[in-house]
């Protein structure tokens, strides 16, 4: 009996989590414009999607922003994590707390404060546009990279870096040959997470992109305001699948690491 209840409970949870997405996916293949009645399978909305110039432009900005921001954030985050790892305990704790604040901060606050910052900098001919959105994405991505790299650094046995230097390695060589391979899984996880976050973001982008630049989520939002069109479903489905694949990749990477460890 207990077992059945547990099953039912699990089922309900998953149902509420995934039913909306399932509906969305199903109706993205609907041949009619209706979002309520099924009238046959079709890829009509998908082809419409790819013919829409503004959507393609948004896709371009989204991908460009995701690639650049996750790449840059990964480099910054890894270097910062390495620095934090070598700090004494007290300042390390303080920095980690500071690092965690943006993660917990509501996106809307981050978005508006970044916008405020950029407008304050407008005197220096800093206009809202792709660059400001990119900077914002880098800013909210760095903490995620730091959080995924730091544990790998502390998993390294004591004195690993010292041992490399003891054997004649310069700090840079030691980092490349000894530290980097050791923390690689953390770096990759961090990079994929940053990429996902960037694709996923609406609120912060909305406040920092300015006029003329839209990413996919802003695009969906604007389209939805003009009335629901099934091509939104198609676009959302594609984004969902992309993010899902990335998350599976992250999981795969953490699993492989665990297997190596055991």
């Amino acid at each position: 009996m207990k077992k059945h209840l547990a099953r039912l409970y699990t089922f309900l949870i998953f149902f509420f989590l995934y039913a909306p997405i399932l509906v969305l996916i199903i109706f993205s293949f609907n041949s009619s414009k209706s979002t309520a009645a099924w009238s046959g399978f079709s890829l009509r909305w998908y082809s419409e999607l790819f013919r829409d110039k503004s959507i393609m432009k948004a896709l371009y900005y989204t991908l460009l922003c995701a690639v650049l921001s996750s790449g840059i954030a990964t480099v910054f985050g890894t270097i910062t994590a390495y620095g934090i790892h070598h700090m004494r305990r007290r300042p390390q704790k303080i920095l980690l707390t500071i690092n965690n604040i943006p993660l917990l901060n509501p996106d809307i606050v981050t978005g508006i404060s970044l916008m405020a910052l950029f407008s304050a900098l407008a005197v220096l001919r800093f206009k809202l546009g792709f660059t400001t959105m990119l900077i914002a994405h880098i800013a909210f991505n760095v903490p995620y990279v730091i959080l995924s790299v730091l544990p790998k650094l502390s998993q390294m046995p004591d004195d690993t870096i010292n041992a490399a230097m003891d054997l004649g390695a310069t700090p840079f060589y030691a980092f490349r040959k000894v530290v980097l391979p050791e923390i690689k899984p953390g770096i990759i996880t961090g990079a994929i997470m940053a990429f996902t976050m960037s694709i996923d973001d609406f609120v912060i982008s909305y406040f920092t992109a300015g006029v003329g630049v839209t990413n996919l989520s802003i695009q969906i939002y604007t389209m939805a305001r003009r009335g629901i069109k099934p091509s939104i479903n198609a676009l959302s489905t594609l984004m969902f699948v992309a993010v899902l694949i990335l998350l599976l990749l992250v999981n795969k990477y953490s699993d492989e690491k665990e297997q190596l460890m055991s």
Partner: protein
Amino acid sequence: MSNRLIEGIHLVKEYDGSRVVDNIDFWVKSKEFLTILGPSGCGKTTTLRMIGGFETPTSGDILLSGKSIVSLPPYERPINTVFQRYALFPHMSIYDNIAFGLHIKKMPKSEIDKRVSKMLSLVNLEGFEKRRVNSLSGGQQQRIAIARALVNEPQILLLDEPLGALDLKLRKEMQLELKYMQQDLGITFIYVTHDQEEALTMSDKIIIMNKGKIQQVGSPTDIYNEPENAFVADFIGESNIVSGIFKEDKVVEFAGTIFPCIDTGFARDEAIDVVVRPEDIEITADVRAQLHGVVDSTVFKGVHYEMIVIENEREWLIQSTIPHEEGKQVGLYIAPDLIHIMKKEA
């Protein structure tokens, strides 16, 4: 001076204001085997890390062949280290671990292969080249750490309790092996341990440390036979330590009795500590007996019996090959040259 290969001068290390290494001076000759011996937390590892370049001394200097090296990074010192917790590179094979230093020196591959396999057979791990670090036991990892450092044939090798994870038998074997390699390769060893037996069997010179300070420096026989204070005497082996009074040259009073001894140079009626080793007290029934007591316990320890004799509420630890039953009245005799007199600790 010229025969001092490496020298520490007034070395001090403080962490957050507390002195972990407190103004120590030492020097090592080339090809010497120096052991730093002391209880856990006395500052052995910290001293070694300053020599290796992983910690900067708070004050003081370290000279290598007369030149200061404190400002040199570890990778510019002709010194290699066997770390207390091995610090092997987990993602590399055993071969790559051992070859790491040789790679940096740009040694040809064939030469590296030769040296690595020679090192592996020296530490009794032939054929382990392709193994992963995580698949090795603690003792095996420790031996790889020794191989990884030794393969570079440094001028000075620092070893931080390198045999700590081995069982007794392997440990004895490796002690001999290390000593042999040290002499064979002509490398200066600075060896850290808290095992006094290991220190006594392997070293040319021993530094005994406690609470960051050097207690005594000397050869194993010096240290064993002539401990300079009660700490050393107690640490180097189980000893009977009692307070006494130095009456005059070659006469000392302790346990309420006057004893002839061979020490000189203390002040008349100076309060001193007397050390007598358990194997140096003779149980006797004849007139030579200086102290009288009752056997409290007798335990067989393999080669000898260990007895505790109670004399006037004092316990005397005695080792002898002849057992005496518990409760028996016995006399104790200590020969003059087996009484060691030490300055009282402040």
